Protein backbone atom coordinates (compact mmCIF):
# COMPACT_ATOMS: atom_id res chain seq x y z
CA UNK A 1 0.00 0.00 0.00
CA UNK A 2 1.71 3.19 -1.14
CA UNK A 3 1.46 6.06 1.28
CA UNK A 4 0.16 8.49 -1.33
CA UNK A 5 -3.02 6.39 -1.62
CA UNK A 6 -4.26 7.80 1.64
CA UNK A 7 -3.70 11.47 0.98
CA UNK A 8 -7.33 12.16 0.01
CA UNK A 9 -8.69 10.52 3.12
CA UNK A 10 -10.63 12.71 5.54
CA UNK A 11 -8.08 14.32 7.81
CA UNK A 12 -10.10 13.75 10.95
CA UNK A 13 -10.41 10.00 10.46
CA UNK A 14 -8.53 7.66 12.78
CA UNK A 15 -5.34 6.50 11.07
CA UNK A 16 -6.10 2.78 11.35
CA UNK A 17 -9.43 3.49 9.64
CA UNK A 18 -7.53 5.17 6.80
CA UNK A 19 -5.60 1.96 6.28
CA UNK A 20 -8.85 -0.03 6.18
CA UNK A 21 -10.44 2.50 3.81
CA UNK A 22 -7.64 1.81 1.33
CA UNK A 23 -8.35 -1.91 1.39
CA UNK A 24 -11.99 -1.56 0.29
CA UNK A 25 -12.64 -1.10 -3.45
CA UNK A 26 -15.17 1.05 -5.31
CA UNK A 27 -18.85 0.04 -5.12
CA UNK A 28 -18.25 -2.69 -2.55
CA UNK A 29 -20.94 -3.78 -0.09
CA UNK A 30 -19.47 -3.31 3.35
CA UNK A 31 -20.51 -4.00 6.95
CA UNK A 32 -18.60 -2.11 9.64
CA UNK A 33 -18.97 -3.83 13.01
CA UNK A 34 -18.23 -1.37 15.78
CA UNK A 35 -18.59 1.53 13.35
CA UNK A 36 -18.62 4.22 16.05
CA UNK A 37 -20.07 7.45 14.67
CA UNK A 38 -19.69 6.06 11.14
CA UNK A 39 -16.58 7.97 10.00
CA UNK A 40 -15.30 5.07 7.87
CA UNK A 41 -18.74 4.40 6.40
CA UNK A 42 -19.35 8.05 5.52
CA UNK A 43 -15.94 8.30 3.91
CA UNK A 44 -16.36 5.14 1.83
CA UNK A 45 -19.91 6.05 0.78
CA UNK A 46 -18.77 9.50 -0.38
CA UNK A 47 -15.43 8.59 -1.98
CA UNK A 48 -16.01 5.09 -3.32
CA UNK A 49 -19.81 4.79 -3.61
CA UNK A 50 -19.61 1.93 -1.12
CA UNK A 51 -22.94 0.53 0.14
CA UNK A 52 -21.99 0.81 3.80
CA UNK A 53 -23.91 -0.65 6.75
CA UNK A 54 -22.86 -0.48 10.38
CA UNK A 55 -23.38 -2.00 13.82
CA UNK A 56 -22.49 -0.03 16.95
CA UNK A 57 -22.83 -1.05 20.60
CA UNK A 58 -22.62 2.48 22.03
CA UNK A 59 -26.03 4.14 21.73
CA UNK A 60 -24.72 7.69 21.59
CA UNK A 61 -22.33 6.86 18.74
CA UNK A 62 -25.05 4.90 16.92
CA UNK A 63 -27.45 7.85 17.23
CA UNK A 64 -24.75 10.16 15.89
CA UNK A 65 -24.26 7.90 12.87
CA UNK A 66 -28.01 7.58 12.20
CA UNK A 67 -28.38 11.36 12.46
CA UNK A 68 -25.88 11.60 9.60
CA UNK A 69 -28.17 9.45 7.49
CA UNK A 70 -26.03 6.32 7.77
CA UNK A 71 -27.47 2.80 7.87
CA UNK A 72 -26.30 1.99 11.39
CA UNK A 73 -28.09 -0.21 13.89
CA UNK A 74 -27.55 -0.38 17.61
CA UNK A 75 -26.32 -3.91 18.20
CA UNK A 76 -23.21 -6.00 18.79
CA UNK A 77 -20.95 -8.51 17.08
CA UNK A 78 -21.86 -11.41 19.36
CA UNK A 79 -25.63 -11.20 18.89
CA UNK A 80 -26.49 -9.54 15.58
CA UNK A 81 -24.32 -11.10 12.86
CA UNK A 82 -26.28 -14.36 12.80
CA UNK A 83 -29.29 -12.57 11.27
CA UNK A 84 -27.58 -11.47 8.04
CA UNK A 85 -27.86 -13.78 5.02
CA UNK A 86 -24.84 -15.66 3.60
CA UNK A 87 -22.65 -13.57 1.31
CA UNK A 88 -24.53 -10.34 2.02
CA UNK A 89 -21.32 -8.26 1.91
CA UNK A 90 -18.04 -8.06 0.02
CA UNK A 91 -16.19 -6.82 3.11
CA UNK A 92 -16.98 -7.15 6.79
CA UNK A 93 -14.85 -4.91 9.01
CA UNK A 94 -14.18 -5.41 12.72
CA UNK A 95 -11.87 -2.69 13.94
CA UNK A 96 -10.23 -2.85 17.41
CA UNK A 97 -13.13 -4.91 18.72
CA UNK A 98 -12.22 -8.60 18.36
CA UNK A 99 -10.54 -8.65 21.78
CA UNK A 100 -13.72 -7.33 23.42
CA UNK A 101 -16.31 -9.75 22.01
CA UNK A 102 -17.59 -12.76 23.96
CA UNK A 103 -16.89 -15.37 21.29
CA UNK A 104 -14.16 -14.13 18.92
CA UNK A 105 -13.94 -17.42 17.01
CA UNK A 106 -17.69 -17.45 16.34
CA UNK A 107 -17.64 -13.76 15.38
CA UNK A 108 -14.93 -14.47 12.78
CA UNK A 109 -16.95 -17.40 11.44
CA UNK A 110 -20.01 -15.20 11.10
CA UNK A 111 -17.96 -12.46 9.41
CA UNK A 112 -16.74 -14.90 6.78
CA UNK A 113 -20.19 -16.41 6.37
CA UNK A 114 -21.88 -13.09 5.61
CA UNK A 115 -18.89 -11.52 3.84
CA UNK A 116 -16.43 -12.64 1.17
CA UNK A 117 -13.58 -10.88 2.96
CA UNK A 118 -13.06 -10.03 6.62
CA UNK A 119 -10.89 -7.12 7.74
CA UNK A 120 -9.92 -7.39 11.39
CA UNK A 121 -7.75 -5.13 13.50
CA UNK A 122 -6.81 -5.75 17.14
CA UNK A 123 -4.26 -4.58 19.69
CA UNK A 124 -1.29 -6.97 19.82
CA UNK A 125 -0.73 -8.48 23.26
CA UNK A 126 2.65 -9.75 22.09
CA UNK A 127 4.17 -6.24 21.95
CA UNK A 128 7.52 -6.04 23.77
CA UNK A 129 6.28 -3.47 26.27
CA UNK A 130 3.47 -5.79 27.39
CA UNK A 131 5.92 -8.68 27.76
CA UNK A 132 8.46 -6.50 29.55
CA UNK A 133 5.99 -5.13 32.11
CA UNK A 134 4.59 -8.54 32.91
CA UNK A 135 8.06 -10.11 33.13
CA UNK A 136 9.62 -7.41 35.31
CA UNK A 137 6.69 -6.05 37.31
CA UNK A 138 4.68 -9.25 37.56
CA UNK A 139 1.51 -7.18 37.17
CA UNK A 140 -0.99 -6.94 34.30
CA UNK A 141 0.54 -4.57 31.77
CA UNK A 142 -0.50 -0.93 31.63
CA UNK A 143 0.63 0.61 28.32
CA UNK A 144 -0.38 3.18 25.72
CA UNK A 145 -2.61 0.51 24.13
CA UNK A 146 -3.73 -1.45 27.19
CA UNK A 147 -4.91 1.38 29.38
CA UNK A 148 -7.57 -0.13 31.65
CA UNK A 149 -6.89 -2.19 34.80
CA UNK A 150 -7.71 -5.90 34.57
CA UNK A 151 -10.85 -5.57 36.72
CA UNK A 152 -12.58 -3.11 34.41
CA UNK A 153 -11.15 -3.74 30.97
CA UNK A 154 -13.67 -4.63 28.24
CA UNK A 155 -10.84 -6.51 26.51
CA UNK A 156 -11.66 -10.02 27.68
CA UNK A 157 -9.98 -11.89 24.80
CA UNK A 158 -6.59 -10.32 24.08
CA UNK A 159 -4.34 -12.16 21.65
CA UNK A 160 -1.00 -11.79 19.93
CA UNK A 161 -0.26 -11.64 16.21
CA UNK A 162 1.09 -15.20 16.40
CA UNK A 163 -2.10 -16.33 18.14
CA UNK A 164 -4.16 -14.85 15.32
CA UNK A 165 -2.08 -16.62 12.67
CA UNK A 166 -2.69 -19.87 14.56
CA UNK A 167 -6.47 -19.30 14.73
CA UNK A 168 -6.62 -18.50 11.00
CA UNK A 169 -4.75 -21.74 10.33
CA UNK A 170 -7.06 -23.71 12.63
CA UNK A 171 -10.19 -22.30 11.00
CA UNK A 172 -8.85 -22.66 7.46
CA UNK A 173 -8.89 -18.97 6.57
CA UNK A 174 -6.60 -17.60 3.88
CA UNK A 175 -4.71 -14.50 5.01
CA UNK A 176 -4.86 -12.17 2.01
CA UNK A 177 -2.80 -9.44 3.61
CA UNK A 178 -1.63 -8.40 7.03
CA UNK A 179 0.41 -5.68 8.63
CA UNK A 180 1.51 -4.49 12.03
CA UNK A 181 1.21 -0.82 12.91
CA UNK A 182 2.03 1.44 15.80
CA UNK A 183 -0.55 3.06 18.05
CA UNK A 184 -1.12 5.93 15.62
CA UNK A 185 -1.84 3.51 12.79
CA UNK A 186 1.43 4.08 10.96
CA UNK A 187 2.74 1.04 9.19
CA UNK A 188 5.83 -0.66 10.53
CA UNK A 189 8.32 -2.48 8.33
CA UNK A 190 8.19 -5.97 9.85
CA UNK A 191 6.07 -7.71 7.25
CA UNK A 192 8.90 -10.13 6.41
CA UNK A 193 9.09 -11.44 9.96
CA UNK A 194 5.96 -12.35 11.90
CA UNK A 195 8.03 -12.75 15.07
CA UNK A 196 9.44 -9.21 14.78
CA UNK A 197 5.99 -7.82 13.98
CA UNK A 198 4.64 -9.63 17.03
CA UNK A 199 7.33 -7.98 19.16
CA UNK A 200 7.16 -4.43 17.79
CA UNK A 201 3.64 -3.98 16.36
CA UNK A 202 1.13 -2.37 18.72
CA UNK A 203 -1.84 -3.01 16.44
CA UNK A 204 -2.40 -5.73 13.85
CA UNK A 205 -4.52 -5.55 10.72
CA UNK A 206 -5.58 -8.66 8.79
CA UNK A 207 -7.61 -9.30 5.67
CA UNK A 208 -9.01 -12.83 5.49
CA UNK A 209 -11.16 -14.93 3.21
CA UNK A 210 -12.47 -18.43 3.27
CA UNK A 211 -10.17 -20.92 1.53
Amino acid at each position, binding site marked *: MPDDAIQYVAKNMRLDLRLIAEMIPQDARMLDIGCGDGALMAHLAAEKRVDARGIEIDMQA*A*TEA*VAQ*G*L*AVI*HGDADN*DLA*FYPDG*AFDYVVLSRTLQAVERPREVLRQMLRIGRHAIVSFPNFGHWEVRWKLLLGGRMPDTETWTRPWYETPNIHPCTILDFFALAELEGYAIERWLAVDERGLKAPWTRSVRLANLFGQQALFQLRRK
Partner: protein
Amino acid sequence: MNANAPFPEVTHQRALLPEGLTLDCGAVIRPLAVAYRSYGTLNAARSNAIMVCHALTGDQYVAERQPVTGKDGWWDAIIGPGKPVDTDRFFVICANVLGGCMGSTGPREEMTDENGVPQGRPWGTDFPVVTIRDMVRAQKKLTDHLGITRLLAVIGGSMGGMQVLEWAATFPEAVFAAAPIACASHHSAQNIAFHEVGRAAIHSDPDWKQGRYWEDGRIPAQGLSVARMVAHITYLSEAALTRKFGRRLQGASALTFLEDVFQVESYLRHQGSTFVRRFDANSYLTITRAMDYFDLAHEHGSVAAAFRNTPTRFFVASFSSDWLFPTGESRALVRALNTAAARVSFIEVTTDKGHDAFLLDEPEFHRALGGFLTGAARDAGL
Protein backbone atom coordinates in the same frame (compact mmCIF):
# COMPACT_ATOMS: atom_id res chain seq x y z
CA MET B 1 -72.19 20.31 28.40
CA ASN B 2 -73.95 16.97 28.32
CA ALA B 3 -71.29 14.26 28.70
CA ASN B 4 -73.45 11.82 26.79
CA ALA B 5 -73.89 13.99 23.70
CA PRO B 6 -71.89 13.15 20.56
CA PHE B 7 -69.00 15.45 19.74
CA PRO B 8 -69.65 18.38 17.39
CA GLU B 9 -69.73 17.99 13.63
CA VAL B 10 -66.80 19.60 11.84
CA THR B 11 -66.29 19.72 8.09
CA HIS B 12 -63.06 17.95 7.18
CA GLN B 13 -61.10 18.29 3.94
CA ARG B 14 -61.48 15.00 2.12
CA ALA B 15 -60.95 13.17 -1.13
CA LEU B 16 -64.06 11.29 -2.28
CA LEU B 17 -63.04 8.30 -4.37
CA PRO B 18 -66.06 6.94 -6.26
CA GLU B 19 -64.41 3.65 -7.25
CA GLY B 20 -64.27 2.66 -3.57
CA LEU B 21 -62.12 0.01 -1.92
CA THR B 22 -62.36 -3.77 -1.59
CA LEU B 23 -61.35 -4.78 1.93
CA ASP B 24 -59.41 -7.82 3.14
CA CYS B 25 -62.70 -9.20 4.53
CA GLY B 26 -64.23 -9.06 1.04
CA ALA B 27 -66.62 -6.16 1.68
CA VAL B 28 -66.62 -3.18 -0.68
CA ILE B 29 -66.66 0.39 0.60
CA ARG B 30 -68.10 2.65 -2.09
CA PRO B 31 -67.50 5.51 -2.33
CA LEU B 32 -64.39 5.83 -0.20
CA ALA B 33 -63.83 9.08 1.67
CA VAL B 34 -60.29 9.84 2.85
CA ALA B 35 -60.05 12.92 5.06
CA TYR B 36 -56.56 14.39 4.98
CA ARG B 37 -54.41 17.43 5.65
CA SER B 38 -51.23 18.49 3.90
CA TYR B 39 -48.41 20.89 4.74
CA GLY B 40 -45.68 22.36 2.54
CA THR B 41 -45.61 22.30 -1.25
CA LEU B 42 -45.50 19.35 -3.61
CA ASN B 43 -42.59 19.93 -6.02
CA ALA B 44 -42.95 19.73 -9.80
CA ALA B 45 -41.49 16.21 -9.92
CA ARG B 46 -43.91 15.18 -7.13
CA SER B 47 -40.97 13.55 -5.41
CA ASN B 48 -40.90 15.29 -2.01
CA ALA B 49 -44.01 13.82 -0.40
CA ILE B 50 -43.93 12.31 3.08
CA MET B 51 -46.92 10.36 4.37
CA VAL B 52 -47.46 10.51 8.13
CA CYS B 53 -49.54 7.68 9.62
CA HIS B 54 -51.39 8.35 12.86
CA ALA B 55 -51.82 6.14 15.91
CA LEU B 56 -55.01 4.54 17.30
CA THR B 57 -56.66 7.73 18.56
CA GLY B 58 -54.75 10.23 16.42
CA ASP B 59 -56.06 12.01 13.35
CA GLN B 60 -55.01 13.94 10.26
CA TYR B 61 -54.44 17.20 12.18
CA VAL B 62 -50.80 16.36 12.75
CA ALA B 63 -49.24 19.84 12.59
CA GLU B 64 -52.02 22.34 13.21
CA ARG B 65 -54.81 23.11 15.68
CA GLN B 66 -57.25 20.20 15.98
CA PRO B 67 -60.68 21.68 15.10
CA VAL B 68 -62.66 19.59 17.63
CA THR B 69 -60.39 19.89 20.66
CA GLY B 70 -58.64 23.16 19.83
CA LYS B 71 -55.34 21.56 20.83
CA ASP B 72 -52.05 21.69 18.92
CA GLY B 73 -51.28 19.04 16.28
CA TRP B 74 -50.17 15.74 17.79
CA TRP B 75 -46.77 15.78 16.06
CA ASP B 76 -46.18 19.55 16.09
CA ALA B 77 -42.86 18.82 17.79
CA ILE B 78 -41.36 17.29 14.65
CA ILE B 79 -43.37 18.59 11.69
CA GLY B 80 -43.13 22.18 10.48
CA PRO B 81 -40.78 24.71 8.90
CA GLY B 82 -37.19 23.96 9.94
CA LYS B 83 -38.27 20.96 12.06
CA PRO B 84 -37.01 17.36 11.58
CA VAL B 85 -39.82 16.79 9.07
CA ASP B 86 -39.20 20.11 7.37
CA THR B 87 -42.28 21.47 5.60
CA ASP B 88 -40.07 24.03 3.82
CA ARG B 89 -38.59 21.07 1.92
CA PHE B 90 -41.17 18.31 2.09
CA PHE B 91 -44.84 17.99 1.21
CA VAL B 92 -46.34 16.29 4.27
CA ILE B 93 -49.64 14.41 4.05
CA CYS B 94 -51.58 12.91 6.92
CA ALA B 95 -54.87 11.05 6.39
CA ASN B 96 -57.48 9.98 8.89
CA VAL B 97 -57.45 6.16 8.88
CA LEU B 98 -60.20 4.10 7.33
CA GLY B 99 -62.59 3.35 10.20
CA GLY B 100 -61.66 6.58 11.96
CA CYS B 101 -63.99 9.34 13.10
CA MET B 102 -62.50 12.55 11.67
CA GLY B 103 -64.05 12.46 8.22
CA SER B 104 -62.73 9.29 6.57
CA THR B 105 -65.17 6.47 5.87
CA GLY B 106 -65.89 4.82 9.21
CA PRO B 107 -68.63 3.76 11.64
CA ARG B 108 -69.69 7.37 12.26
CA GLU B 109 -70.19 8.21 8.56
CA GLU B 110 -73.31 7.55 6.54
CA MET B 111 -73.66 3.93 5.48
CA THR B 112 -73.72 3.11 1.77
CA ASP B 113 -74.65 -0.14 0.03
CA GLU B 114 -72.33 -1.94 -2.41
CA ASN B 115 -73.53 0.37 -5.20
CA GLY B 116 -72.68 3.44 -3.21
CA VAL B 117 -76.30 4.32 -2.42
CA PRO B 118 -76.61 6.17 0.93
CA GLN B 119 -78.70 4.36 3.53
CA GLY B 120 -79.73 7.35 5.59
CA ARG B 121 -78.06 6.14 8.82
CA PRO B 122 -74.49 5.79 10.11
CA TRP B 123 -72.58 2.55 9.60
CA GLY B 124 -72.28 1.94 13.33
CA THR B 125 -71.32 -1.64 14.07
CA ASP B 126 -72.36 -2.62 10.54
CA PHE B 127 -69.09 -1.10 9.39
CA PRO B 128 -67.01 -4.00 8.05
CA VAL B 129 -63.91 -5.37 9.80
CA VAL B 130 -60.88 -3.47 8.52
CA THR B 131 -57.17 -4.33 8.69
CA ILE B 132 -54.06 -2.17 8.85
CA ARG B 133 -53.51 -3.14 5.21
CA ASP B 134 -56.98 -1.81 4.31
CA MET B 135 -56.05 1.50 5.97
CA VAL B 136 -52.86 1.62 3.89
CA ARG B 137 -54.70 0.77 0.67
CA ALA B 138 -57.04 3.69 1.37
CA GLN B 139 -54.01 5.99 1.82
CA LYS B 140 -52.54 4.64 -1.43
CA LYS B 141 -55.78 5.60 -3.19
CA LEU B 142 -55.29 9.11 -1.80
CA THR B 143 -51.69 9.40 -3.03
CA ASP B 144 -52.76 8.08 -6.46
CA HIS B 145 -55.51 10.70 -6.44
CA LEU B 146 -52.87 13.37 -5.66
CA GLY B 147 -50.70 12.11 -8.55
CA ILE B 148 -47.86 10.89 -6.32
CA THR B 149 -46.33 7.62 -7.52
CA ARG B 150 -43.53 7.33 -5.00
CA LEU B 151 -43.45 8.72 -1.47
CA LEU B 152 -40.08 9.96 -0.30
CA ALA B 153 -40.97 8.56 3.12
CA VAL B 154 -43.74 7.04 5.17
CA ILE B 155 -43.41 7.66 8.90
CA GLY B 156 -45.47 6.93 11.99
CA GLY B 157 -45.45 5.68 15.55
CA SER B 158 -47.40 2.92 17.32
CA MET B 159 -50.30 1.93 15.04
CA GLY B 160 -48.82 4.51 12.64
CA GLY B 161 -45.66 2.37 12.62
CA MET B 162 -47.72 -0.69 11.75
CA GLN B 163 -49.10 1.22 8.75
CA VAL B 164 -45.55 2.21 7.77
CA LEU B 165 -44.52 -1.46 7.75
CA GLU B 166 -47.63 -2.40 5.79
CA TRP B 167 -46.92 0.38 3.25
CA ALA B 168 -43.39 -0.95 2.68
CA ALA B 169 -44.54 -4.57 2.49
CA THR B 170 -47.53 -3.93 0.19
CA PHE B 171 -46.20 -1.11 -2.03
CA PRO B 172 -42.39 -1.39 -1.87
CA GLU B 173 -41.85 0.57 -5.09
CA ALA B 174 -43.95 3.44 -3.76
CA VAL B 175 -41.92 3.90 -0.56
CA PHE B 176 -38.34 5.19 -0.79
CA ALA B 177 -37.84 5.41 2.97
CA ALA B 178 -39.84 4.08 5.91
CA ALA B 179 -39.70 5.03 9.58
CA PRO B 180 -41.70 2.64 11.78
CA ILE B 181 -41.41 4.07 15.31
CA ALA B 182 -42.30 2.44 18.65
CA CYS B 183 -44.10 -0.46 17.01
CA ALA B 184 -43.75 -4.16 16.18
CA SER B 185 -44.36 -6.56 13.32
CA HIS B 186 -47.39 -7.95 15.16
CA HIS B 187 -49.68 -7.00 18.02
CA SER B 188 -48.73 -9.01 21.12
CA ALA B 189 -51.11 -11.12 23.20
CA GLN B 190 -50.69 -8.69 26.08
CA ASN B 191 -51.65 -5.75 23.88
CA ILE B 192 -54.68 -7.60 22.52
CA ALA B 193 -55.66 -8.32 26.12
CA PHE B 194 -55.53 -4.64 27.06
CA HIS B 195 -57.60 -3.77 23.99
CA GLU B 196 -60.18 -6.35 24.99
CA VAL B 197 -60.56 -4.74 28.42
CA GLY B 198 -61.30 -1.45 26.66
CA ARG B 199 -63.81 -3.05 24.31
CA ALA B 200 -65.48 -4.87 27.20
CA ALA B 201 -65.87 -1.53 29.02
CA ILE B 202 -67.64 -0.06 25.96
CA HIS B 203 -69.82 -3.14 25.49
CA SER B 204 -70.93 -3.06 29.12
CA ASP B 205 -72.09 0.56 28.98
CA PRO B 206 -75.94 0.51 28.69
CA ASP B 207 -75.70 3.59 26.46
CA TRP B 208 -73.74 1.57 23.90
CA LYS B 209 -76.97 -0.25 22.90
CA GLN B 210 -75.24 -2.92 20.81
CA GLY B 211 -73.58 -0.16 18.84
CA ARG B 212 -76.83 1.66 17.93
CA TYR B 213 -76.26 4.55 20.33
CA TRP B 214 -76.54 7.02 17.44
CA GLU B 215 -80.30 6.29 17.28
CA ASP B 216 -81.07 8.42 20.36
CA GLY B 217 -78.20 10.88 20.12
CA ARG B 218 -76.28 9.53 23.12
CA ILE B 219 -72.79 8.07 23.38
CA PRO B 220 -71.45 5.32 25.69
CA ALA B 221 -69.35 7.92 27.50
CA GLN B 222 -68.72 5.85 30.61
CA GLY B 223 -67.50 2.76 28.76
CA LEU B 224 -65.36 4.70 26.28
CA SER B 225 -63.87 6.71 29.12
CA VAL B 226 -62.86 3.57 31.04
CA ALA B 227 -61.37 2.15 27.82
CA ARG B 228 -59.27 5.28 27.49
CA MET B 229 -58.17 5.16 31.14
CA VAL B 230 -56.88 1.60 30.78
CA ALA B 231 -55.18 2.37 27.48
CA HIS B 232 -53.61 5.53 28.85
CA ILE B 233 -51.81 3.56 31.57
CA THR B 234 -50.20 1.44 28.85
CA TYR B 235 -48.90 4.57 27.11
CA LEU B 236 -46.94 5.67 30.19
CA SER B 237 -44.35 4.00 32.38
CA GLU B 238 -44.16 3.32 36.07
CA ALA B 239 -41.29 5.79 36.33
CA ALA B 240 -43.26 8.53 34.54
CA LEU B 241 -46.35 7.99 36.73
CA THR B 242 -44.18 8.06 39.86
CA ARG B 243 -42.44 11.21 38.69
CA LYS B 244 -45.72 12.98 37.83
CA PHE B 245 -47.92 11.83 40.72
CA GLY B 246 -46.12 9.53 43.12
CA ARG B 247 -48.55 8.59 45.88
CA ARG B 248 -49.72 12.17 46.30
CA LEU B 249 -53.26 12.54 47.61
CA GLN B 250 -55.97 14.55 45.94
CA GLY B 251 -57.05 16.24 49.17
CA ALA B 252 -59.39 13.72 50.76
CA SER B 253 -58.40 13.61 54.42
CA ALA B 254 -60.71 10.83 55.63
CA LEU B 255 -60.39 7.29 54.36
CA THR B 256 -62.83 6.92 51.49
CA PHE B 257 -63.78 4.66 48.61
CA LEU B 258 -65.99 7.01 46.72
CA GLU B 259 -63.93 9.95 45.57
CA ASP B 260 -60.62 10.35 43.84
CA VAL B 261 -58.08 9.75 46.57
CA PHE B 262 -54.85 9.83 44.62
CA GLN B 263 -53.83 12.42 42.07
CA VAL B 264 -53.18 9.76 39.48
CA GLU B 265 -56.87 8.80 39.67
CA SER B 266 -58.14 12.27 38.78
CA TYR B 267 -55.55 12.49 36.04
CA LEU B 268 -56.81 9.27 34.44
CA ARG B 269 -60.44 10.29 34.88
CA HIS B 270 -59.65 13.57 33.13
CA GLN B 271 -57.99 11.68 30.27
CA GLY B 272 -61.10 9.52 29.94
CA SER B 273 -63.64 12.35 30.05
CA THR B 274 -61.84 14.53 27.48
CA PHE B 275 -61.36 11.58 25.15
CA VAL B 276 -65.08 10.87 24.77
CA ARG B 277 -65.56 14.44 23.51
CA ARG B 278 -63.45 13.74 20.44
CA PHE B 279 -63.65 10.03 19.66
CA ASP B 280 -66.36 7.68 18.48
CA ALA B 281 -66.87 4.42 20.41
CA ASN B 282 -67.59 2.28 17.35
CA SER B 283 -64.45 3.69 15.69
CA TYR B 284 -62.52 2.66 18.80
CA LEU B 285 -63.88 -0.88 18.50
CA THR B 286 -63.08 -1.02 14.77
CA ILE B 287 -59.54 0.34 14.98
CA THR B 288 -58.43 -1.64 18.07
CA ARG B 289 -59.55 -4.78 16.21
CA ALA B 290 -57.51 -3.78 13.15
CA MET B 291 -54.41 -3.46 15.36
CA ASP B 292 -55.08 -6.83 16.99
CA TYR B 293 -55.23 -8.51 13.58
CA PHE B 294 -51.89 -7.01 12.52
CA ASP B 295 -49.25 -9.73 12.02
CA LEU B 296 -46.81 -9.37 9.11
CA ALA B 297 -45.37 -12.85 9.62
CA HIS B 298 -48.85 -14.36 9.33
CA GLU B 299 -49.47 -12.41 6.11
CA HIS B 300 -46.14 -13.24 4.46
CA GLY B 301 -44.80 -16.43 6.05
CA SER B 302 -42.17 -14.50 7.99
CA VAL B 303 -41.31 -10.88 8.67
CA ALA B 304 -38.16 -11.22 6.55
CA ALA B 305 -40.25 -12.60 3.66
CA ALA B 306 -42.43 -9.48 3.83
CA PHE B 307 -39.37 -7.38 2.94
CA ARG B 308 -37.24 -9.74 0.80
CA ASN B 309 -35.04 -7.61 -1.50
CA THR B 310 -36.99 -4.50 -0.62
CA PRO B 311 -35.79 -1.28 -2.28
CA THR B 312 -37.01 0.65 0.78
CA ARG B 313 -34.62 1.94 3.45
CA PHE B 314 -35.74 1.83 7.08
CA PHE B 315 -35.28 3.79 10.28
CA VAL B 316 -36.52 1.90 13.33
CA ALA B 317 -36.62 3.56 16.75
CA SER B 318 -37.82 2.33 20.12
CA PHE B 319 -37.99 3.89 23.59
CA SER B 320 -36.36 2.24 26.60
CA SER B 321 -39.35 2.53 28.98
CA ASP B 322 -42.01 1.55 26.39
CA TRP B 323 -43.60 -1.66 27.64
CA LEU B 324 -46.46 -1.61 25.12
CA PHE B 325 -44.05 -1.99 22.19
CA PRO B 326 -40.80 -2.89 23.96
CA THR B 327 -37.38 -2.51 22.36
CA GLY B 328 -37.10 -6.29 21.96
CA GLU B 329 -39.87 -6.18 19.37
CA SER B 330 -38.17 -3.41 17.41
CA ARG B 331 -34.89 -5.32 17.58
CA ALA B 332 -36.62 -8.44 16.23
CA LEU B 333 -37.97 -6.30 13.38
CA VAL B 334 -34.47 -4.94 12.67
CA ARG B 335 -33.03 -8.45 12.59
CA ALA B 336 -35.74 -9.56 10.16
CA LEU B 337 -34.93 -6.54 7.98
CA ASN B 338 -31.24 -7.51 8.06
CA THR B 339 -32.21 -11.04 7.01
CA ALA B 340 -34.10 -9.47 4.12
CA ALA B 341 -30.91 -7.53 3.20
CA ALA B 342 -32.72 -4.23 3.77
CA ARG B 343 -30.87 -1.00 4.48
CA VAL B 344 -31.80 -0.25 8.08
CA SER B 345 -30.92 2.16 10.88
CA PHE B 346 -31.97 1.46 14.45
CA ILE B 347 -31.68 3.23 17.78
CA GLU B 348 -33.27 2.82 21.18
CA VAL B 349 -33.90 6.19 22.82
CA THR B 350 -33.29 6.27 26.59
CA THR B 351 -36.32 7.85 28.28
CA ASP B 352 -38.67 7.26 31.21
CA LYS B 353 -41.73 8.52 29.30
CA GLY B 354 -42.98 5.14 28.10
CA HIS B 355 -44.74 4.52 24.80
CA ASP B 356 -45.92 8.15 24.58
CA ALA B 357 -42.29 9.25 24.25
CA PHE B 358 -42.59 9.08 20.45
CA LEU B 359 -44.97 12.07 20.65
CA LEU B 360 -42.94 14.08 23.15
CA ASP B 361 -39.80 16.17 23.25
CA GLU B 362 -37.03 13.60 22.67
CA PRO B 363 -34.13 15.48 21.02
CA GLU B 364 -32.07 12.36 20.23
CA PHE B 365 -35.00 10.79 18.43
CA HIS B 366 -35.78 13.99 16.55
CA ARG B 367 -32.17 14.40 15.48
CA ALA B 368 -31.93 10.80 14.26
CA LEU B 369 -35.24 10.99 12.37
CA GLY B 370 -34.28 14.33 10.82
CA GLY B 371 -30.90 12.93 9.74
CA PHE B 372 -32.53 9.84 8.27
CA LEU B 373 -34.93 11.96 6.19
CA THR B 374 -32.17 14.34 5.08
CA GLY B 375 -30.05 11.35 3.99
CA ALA B 376 -33.03 9.82 2.17
CA ALA B 377 -33.76 13.11 0.37
CA ARG B 378 -30.10 13.36 -0.67
CA ASP B 379 -29.98 9.78 -1.98
CA ALA B 380 -33.32 10.22 -3.75
CA GLY B 381 -31.76 13.12 -5.65
CA LEU B 382 -33.84 15.84 -4.02
